[in-house]
Structure formats: C-alpha cells, structure tokens
C-alpha cells in the first residue's frame, strides 16, 4: 500500500513545491548540480534540492562502484533497522532528475576545476575516510588496528579486505569512547550465531567464529561525564548475553550532586553508567568481560613484531569552574600504568582527506564551512567533522541545500550560465577509458548480492571486490 502510493506522491509534491518556490523566486532556471559522495549527506542534499529547485538536474559522483557510504560500510551489520534509510535513498536515486556515476573519484579521475567548468553548483559530501592517529611509539606494530579498517573489513569495504588481524587472542584494548568503539566491542563480544543472519561478510564471519577474545577494555582519556557514545549503543551492549560490563564505582563518588543540572541526554547516560557500576560489583557468571575505563591515555604500545601491551598515563580533570561538566578538559598526572594485551584498536575519530589542492580546509581535519568557494558547498562529515548520527548529517545536509537556494535567490551563484554538466566530465572519463557504474548498474549488483544472501539466510552477501562489482554493474564511458 505504501509503496504503491509513492508515485503519485512524487508527482504531487513536485508540483506543490514548484508552485511554492515560484511564488517566491521567479528567476529560477534549471541549474546543473553535482554532488560528490553518495553517503547520507549526498542523498539528503539531493532530496532537499530537488524539492527546492524542482527543475534542476543533479549528478551524484561516488568513489566506489556502489552507493550509500557509511550506511553500507560503517553502520554495523546488526543494526539492520538503521539501514532502512536506504529505502528513501533508493527513491531519490531512481528520480529521473538524478544521475548516479559510481567508481569515479574527485581528485583522481577529475579535478575540482573540471567540475567548476561543468556545473553551476558543486556540493562536496565525500565524508571522512582517514584515521586520526595517536602518534605514539608502537602504533605500527602488528595487531594495532584502526577501528575504521576493522569496520570496513566486516562490512565488506573492498580495500579493507586484507587487514592483517589476528583474533587468536584473549585481551583487547580499544582506545576511544565513541559509538564506533562500542560497535567494535559489540562485534567482538557478540555471539557469532547472532551475526549470521545479518549482512556481515562471510569471510569476517568465519574469522570471528574462531576468535578467542574474552576481555575487552574500552579506554578513554576523559571521564564518565565526557563520553561521546550515546545511550542507545551503551544500553545495547549491556544487554549482550554472556558479557559482564564492569565500571569502577569510585569514579562516580561526586556525580550524584551534579546530576540534576545536566542536560537530559547526559543525565540519563550518566545514570545508566552509574547503575552499571553497581551491577559490576555482583559476580555474574559470564565468559566474557567488558571494562569501560576512564582517565587514561596511551603513551606507548610495546612488542617486538606484534603488540603485547600498552603504557598508559593517568589523567585528571582540570575542573575548570566556568566550563560545563561535559566539556571539562584533562591534564596528565605523573602516574603510569602498564596493561598487557594482544590486540589494540584505535578509535579516536575520522578525518577527511584534501582530495584536491584547491579545496580549502578551515579546520585541521575537515572543511568546517558550508560555503567553501563560490558555487562550491560542503555537507555531512566532510563539512562538520566525524561526529553525529545520520539524523545530524541529515539536518546538516538540509541546511546546505537551503543555503544554496538562498544564494541563488540573492544572486550569489551564477545560475545564468548554461553548464554542460555530465557531458563535460564524461569526455574526461572516456579519454581515460574509465568504467563507471550507473544506477541500473548498482541495481544489478544489488540484485546479485540479495540473491547470494538467500542461500545463507542473510539479507545480502556483499560483493567485496571492485572488479567483480564492475563486471556486474560497470560499463565503459
């Protein structure tokens, strides 16, 4: 019923928004727009722009042969419901005004300058796909793994399929107190049988089945009031069967008095952490243990070939009076600690790459500005840094789309000049003999993945190899 409603809806909404918009801005012409990156930011920008500028055409360029960015390659396999946003993205991608061009990278296959020749408006949404490093000795030892790569590995990201990870170990440390760290811990601690029916790759599933991991420590440099993970993710890990979560109660000695003044999300999360400390004291019969540890920064990873431990320095809060508890900063003490462990994940955030020298970065790890250059805009994690859930990315993308329309209205963007759009870029790609994947090509890949999944009772078996993807969905320009 809902699905069949969709077509009339689009026609009708299209009409309404056209009317609405024309009543305000008479000079709107059709503008050629390109979006770089097909994650949530790219799709939500496209959705909102189609509504605000109904006569525009939008080309979405994607580095990988397949769309959806971190929804496909980041969001955990056991968070299938989160991936329902793909249904909406699929409607957007199927719109006749939208063109998807997969397997092409800005900075590699063409430059920003080419896009400026081809389009009136360019929206950079290529995310944050590099790791922030700890920059301490031992970071290159075997079995020190960036969380980003581990996640790419179990989610089928083609270039992360060969990570040299040894799961034949018992003790794991994860550095960072964000949702990504919780995801990594959950995948390591969850029973493999509970992962079998997800879209996790078959290869990682069989490797995880042999994992000997028993103890996971998630270590953060600040305290319980400053954690970045959200309550939903934390509650989920508390509910894992056969896993006991342990937090040191001493850390909460003075928090009760602060609680009433905290903002609601922080208050609820702190209460849950506090309740967990009490439960930690009862001895449960669990095979696996998860420790959440605070006020510790790694200073050195030790080992000869593979890592065998970590030196930590103990931090304390500066307790600055004019700063809210959530934003308190830390300073190192002279106390040190050594923790043996055989596997380490670094999970202290992602940063964006400067894929073209012409793209200015106003912050060290991301663009940090919505208006990047005349006619060039940014949205999503590339624009804001790697924080926030899909909801925040959506809201940010809508804002970018809105500001673009304001700029057109105010004559800031040159929409008078007819731009050649994809025809211009196509010539460059053709000269290079580039194979691209269009929306139909992606649908062919999608179909094969779903078919393969059926044999294993999974929603899909992801193809993890670019050349195989191109064989199914690619075509020469």
């Amino acid at each position: 019923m809902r699905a069949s409603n969709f077509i009339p809806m689009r026609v009708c909404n299209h009409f309404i928004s056209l009317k609405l918009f024309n009543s305000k801005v008479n000079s709107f012409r059709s503008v050629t727009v390109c979006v770089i990156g097909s994650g949530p930011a790219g799709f939500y920008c496209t959705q909102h722009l189609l509504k605000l500028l109904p006569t525009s055409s939008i080309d979405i360029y994607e580095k990988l042969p397949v769309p959806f960015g971190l929804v496909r390659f980041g969001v955990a396999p056991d968070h299938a419901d989160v991936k329902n946003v793909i249904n909406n993205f699929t409607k957007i991608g199927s719109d006749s005004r939208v063109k998807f061009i997969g397997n092409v990278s800005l900075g590699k296959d063409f430059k920003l300058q080419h896009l400026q020749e081809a389009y009136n408006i360019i929206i950079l949404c290529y995310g944050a796909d590099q790791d922030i490093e700890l920059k301490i000795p031992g970071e290159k030892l075997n079995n020190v793994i960036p969380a980003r790569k581990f996640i790419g590995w179990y989610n089928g990201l083609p270039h992360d399929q060969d990570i040299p990870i040894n799961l034949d170990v018992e003790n794991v440390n994860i550095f960072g107190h964000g949702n990504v760290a919780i995801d990594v811990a959950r995948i390591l601690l969850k029973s493999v049988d509970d992962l079998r029916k997800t879209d996790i790759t078959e290869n990682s599933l069989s490797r995880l089945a042999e994992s000997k991991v028993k103890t996971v420590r998630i270590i953060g440099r600040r305290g319980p009031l400053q954690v970045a993970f959200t309550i939903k993710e934390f509650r989920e890990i508390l509910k894992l069967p056969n896993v006991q979560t342990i937090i040191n109660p001493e850390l909460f000695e003075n928090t009760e008095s602060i609680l009433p003044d905290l903002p609601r999300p922080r208050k609820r999360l702190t209460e849950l952490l506090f309740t967990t400390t009490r439960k930690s004291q009862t001895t449960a019969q669990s095979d696996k243990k998860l420790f959440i540890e605070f006020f510790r920064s790694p200073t050195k990873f030790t080992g000869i070939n593979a890592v065998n431990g970590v030196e930590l320095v103990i931090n304390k809060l500066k307790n600055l009076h004019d700063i809210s508890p959530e934003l308190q900063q830390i300073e190192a003490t002279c106390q040190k600690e050594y923790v043996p462990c055989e596997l380490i994940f670094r999970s202290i955030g992602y940063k964006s790459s400067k894929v073209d020298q012409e793209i200015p970065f106003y912050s060290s790890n991301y663009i940090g500005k919505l208006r990047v250059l005349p006619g060039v805009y940014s949205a999503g994690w590339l624009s804001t840094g790697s924080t926030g859930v899909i909801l925040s990315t959506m809201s940010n993308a809508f804002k970018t789309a809105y500001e673009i329309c304001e700029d057109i209205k105010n004559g800031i963007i040159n929409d008078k000049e007819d731009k050649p759009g994809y025809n211009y870029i196509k010539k460059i790609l053709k000269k290079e003999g580039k194979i691209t994947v269009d929306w139909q090509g992606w649908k062919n890949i999608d179909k094969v993945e779903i078919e393969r999944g059926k044999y294993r009772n999974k929603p899909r078996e992801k193809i993890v190899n670019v050349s195989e993807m191109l064989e199914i969905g690619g075509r020469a320009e």
Partner: protein
Amino acid sequence: MKYIPTNKFIQSRSLTTTINNLQEKEKSTPQYEVTFVKKNGERIKVTCNEGDSLLDVVLNNNLDFDGYGACGGTLTCSTCHVILKKEDFDRLPDTPTEEENDMLDLAYEYTDTSRLGCQIRITKDLNGLEVCLPSSINDARS
C-alpha cells in the same frame, strides 16, 4: 468484435477489487483527524484510521516532510520527532518506553512534551490531535 480478456484487464480488475476492499475497510473503521503544524505556522490537517501511528499518517497521506521516518518506525532514527501540547502529552495512554527515551535524547529541539511519531497510535480519544514538527525535519525555511 470478440472480447478477449487480456492480462491488463485481469490486472485492473483485481486492482479495482483491492480498491473496493480498501474503501470498505475505510467505511468500517472510524476516521479521525490529525493536524501537523510546521515551524512556519503552516497547518496540515489530514484524516487517518484507528490505530495508525503518526508515522503511518504521514506516509498514508503522502505528507512531504523531508527525512521524516527514516528508519521506518523501528526506533533507530528519531526523525519522527513531534512536539505535543502539554494536555495531549498527558492524556496519551502510555508514557515513552526506555528505548523511545533513548532515541528522544538524540532529537533536536527536544521539549518536555516531545514524543516519537512512530510510537503514537491514534485512537478515538486522540481524534483532533495537533502536533508540532521541529524545524530540522520540515522545510519551514523554504
């Protein structure tokens, strides 16, 4: 000319039957009214069936709220956030569950009378309900 039933005919006949069935259903289940108020003051009044969630109401009436209901009502996105009047909030038959509260913690413009639309079901008591949408969801700014 001899009449040959085609696939198309059969298809359209079954479609008509479905539509008739639906109309029957609509006749038998009571219809209620719900009003959505956008940040710019625009009011959208629609009808719905007994037991529909506010997310169903948005979808069934093809309301064009960009991004609304991204996770399809599975309590994993909080894009379906609505703000109720105090008296309506108080007369809802249930209070938010722990899971709903966890998602509400992520909602923008959270208020003491915020709920997630996918968790509110319309019953006779709630006929005429009026809810506000936060600005991050709708296109008030356009």
